[in-house]
C-alpha cells in the first residue's frame, strides 16, 4: 500500500448505505460526499434515519449494505475505535457524559486520543489539561463549570460539554447529532458561530439538526432524507424550497416564511 499524497477530494463518502433492523429499514440506500472544510447538514422528519446514518458512518451499527470511505479509503470493515484515530469525532443525540468525571475530565477524555498510550509523565506526575482541552472549554463557554459534575449541569450545559469533548480531539471531521437541542435562540446562535469558525479553520462537519433557520444559516450544503433515502440535495435555499421537503418536513410555517 503506497500512499500517494494527493488530498482526496472528499473527507467522507457514503454510497448506497443501508441499515435494516429486521423489517425496519432505518436507512435504505442513502449516501453523501463531504468535501474538506465544508459544513453539510442533514434534514429529515423524525425517524427518517438520520441518527442511524451517523451510527453507520461511525461504524457503531453494522451496514446492511453500502460503502464508506474516509479520505478516499474504504473503512466499512474497520472497528469504530480506529476511526477516532483517523480524525473522526462525533456527538450523540442523547447526552452521554461520564458521571464520575468532572466536566474538565470529560473533555480531557476527548483529547486523549491524540496521546494513545498516555504519556508516562501524566501517569506519574500531574495531568495538566492540554492546549486542545483548554481551547475546547473556552470555545464552548464552559470555563465556569469546568470543575462541576455532569449531574449538576442543566441540559443545555451538558450538550455543550458533548461538543467540547468532540472538539478536544482536534478532529478533521466532526459529526454532530442535534447539537443545539434544548438551547434557546441566542445559545444556538453561539453554537452556529462556533461551527462556522471551525469550518474556516478547515474542519469538515456533518450536522443533523431540526432548527431549519440555523441549518440554512450555517450549512454550505443540505441533504434531505425521508424513509431512509435521499429526497433532495443542494444549496440550503434549494433544499428548503424543494416541494417534497416542504411537504414532508417543513410544514406550512416555513413555507410562508420562505
Amino acid at each position, binding site marked *: 500500500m503506497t500512499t500517494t499524497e494527493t488530498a482526496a477530494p472528499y473527507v467522507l463518502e457514503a454510497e448506497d448505505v443501508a441499515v435494516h433492523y429486521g423489517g425496519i429499514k432505518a436507512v435504505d440506500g442513502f449516501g453523501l460526499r463531504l468535501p474538506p472544510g465544508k459544513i453539510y447538514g442533514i434534514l429529515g422528519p423524525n425517524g427518517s434515519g438520520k441518527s442511524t446514518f451517523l451510527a453507520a458512518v461511525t461504524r457503531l451499527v453494522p451496514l446492511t449494505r453500502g460503502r464508506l470511505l474516509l479520505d478516499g479509503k474504504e473503512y466499512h470493515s474497520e472497528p469504530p475505535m480506529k476511526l477516532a484515530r483517523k480524525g473522526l469525532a*462525533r456527538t450523540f443525540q442523547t447526552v452521554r457524559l461520564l458521571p*464520575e468525571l468532572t466536566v474538565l475530565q470529560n473533555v480531557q477524555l476527548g483529547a486523549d486520543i491524540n496521546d494513545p498510550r498516555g504519556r508516562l509523565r501524566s501517569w506519574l506526575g500531574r495531568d495538566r489539561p492540554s492546549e486542545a482541552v483548554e481551547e475546547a472549554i473556552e470555545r464552548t463557554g464552559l470555563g*465556569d463549570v469546568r470543575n462541576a459534575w455532569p449531574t449538576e449541569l442543566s441540559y443545555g450545559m451538558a450538550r455543550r460539554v458533548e461538543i467540547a469533548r468532540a472538539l478536544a480531539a482536534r478532529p478533521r471531521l466532526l459529526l454532530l447529532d442535534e447539537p443545539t437541542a434544548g438551547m434557546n435562540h441566542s445559545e444556538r446562535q453561539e453554537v452556529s458561530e462556533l461551527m462556522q469558525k471551525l469550518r474556516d479553520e478547515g474542519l469538515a462537519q456533518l450536522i443533523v439538526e431540526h432548527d431549519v433557520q440555523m441549518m440554512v444559516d450555517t450549512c454550505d450544503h443540505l441533504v434531505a432524507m425521508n424513509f431512509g433515502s435521499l429526497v433532495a440535495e443542494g444549496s440550503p435555499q434549494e433544499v428548503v424550497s424543494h416541494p417534497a421537503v416542504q411537504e414532508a418536513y417543513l410544514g406550512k410555517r416555513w413555507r410562508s416564511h420562505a
Partner: protein
Amino acid sequence: MIGWYEANIVLIEATFLNFLLALSIQVPLRVGVFSFAGVGSYGLGAYTAAILTIRYDVPAFVAIGAAVVFASVVGYLFSLIVARLNGLYLAMATIAFVLIISVLATNGGELTGGANGLYGALSDLTTGGVVAVCVVVAFLLALTERGPLRRRIEAVREDPELSMSMGIGVVTVRQLAFTVSGALGACAGAMNALLRTTVSPEEINFHLIVLALTMVIIGGSRSWMGAFIGAVIFTWLPSMLATTGRWQDVVYGLIIILAAIFMPTGLLGLVQSLYQKLRGRSRTAAPAEPPAEEAVEERAMLQALSGESKEGVR
C-alpha cells in the same frame, strides 16, 4: 509489638491475600465487567502452586510465577469465550466457571488429591514476600486510577459505545481485565496455598465469591484502597466479633447490612467525602453568586437571557 505480630501473623498475611483476591474482582468491575472468574483463578493458582511445590519442590517464586502465568492465560482465553456476555449473565457464567473448577479439583484424582485436597506444600515464602507483591500491585493499580488511564477505564465502564467512538479499544480493555484478574486471583491463591501448606476443593466455593464481592463493595469499588479497606475489615472482623460469642454471625450480618445502607460508595467513599467536607471543598464548584440586585432591570435581564454573562450560570 513483636508478640502481637507473631500471634497475629496469620491474620496479617490473610489481609494481604484477601486484598489480592478482592482486587481480582475489583479490576474487572472497574471496567464494567461483572466477573467472578478471579475466584476461579484463585483455585487454579492455589492448585498449580501446591502441585509444583509438592511434586517438584520448586522455589516459592517459581511456583507463584507459574501459577500467575497459567491463570492469566486461562483468564485471557476465558475472556475470548465469554466475549458476548454482559451484566449478571456474565456473572452467572463466571460463577459457573468457579464451581466447575471446584468440581474438577474434587475429581482430579491423584493430581489434585480429590476431596482431600493437597497438603504438605512447604515452601520458602515469607510474609515479607507477600507484602512486597502487594505493594507492587497496589502501586501499579494506583497508576490506573489517575490521569488518562483512569478516564479510559471510566469510559469503558460507563459507556462502551461512546468509548469506541472515542478510539478506546473496549474489547482489548475487557480482555486485559480478565487477564489481570486471573493473575491477581492466582497470586492470592498460590500464596495462600504455600503459606497454609494445604489446599482443598471446599475452599473454592460460592462463599469465597460472596466474600470477595462483599469486600469490594463495602470497602469501595473504584480504588485499590477500597479493596484494601475491605480486606482489612473482613479479615479482622470475625476475630474482633468473637468476643460477642454466640451471636457473632448475627452481628456480622448486621454490620454488612448497615454498611450496605450507609456507605453507597464504600467505606473509602465515605472517608473521602468526609475528608472533602473537612477541607470545605464540596464536590461541586463554587456556588452561584448572589444576583446583582441594583442593576437596571432591562439590562440585567437582557444579559441573563442572552447568556452573555456566563458567570451567572453557575
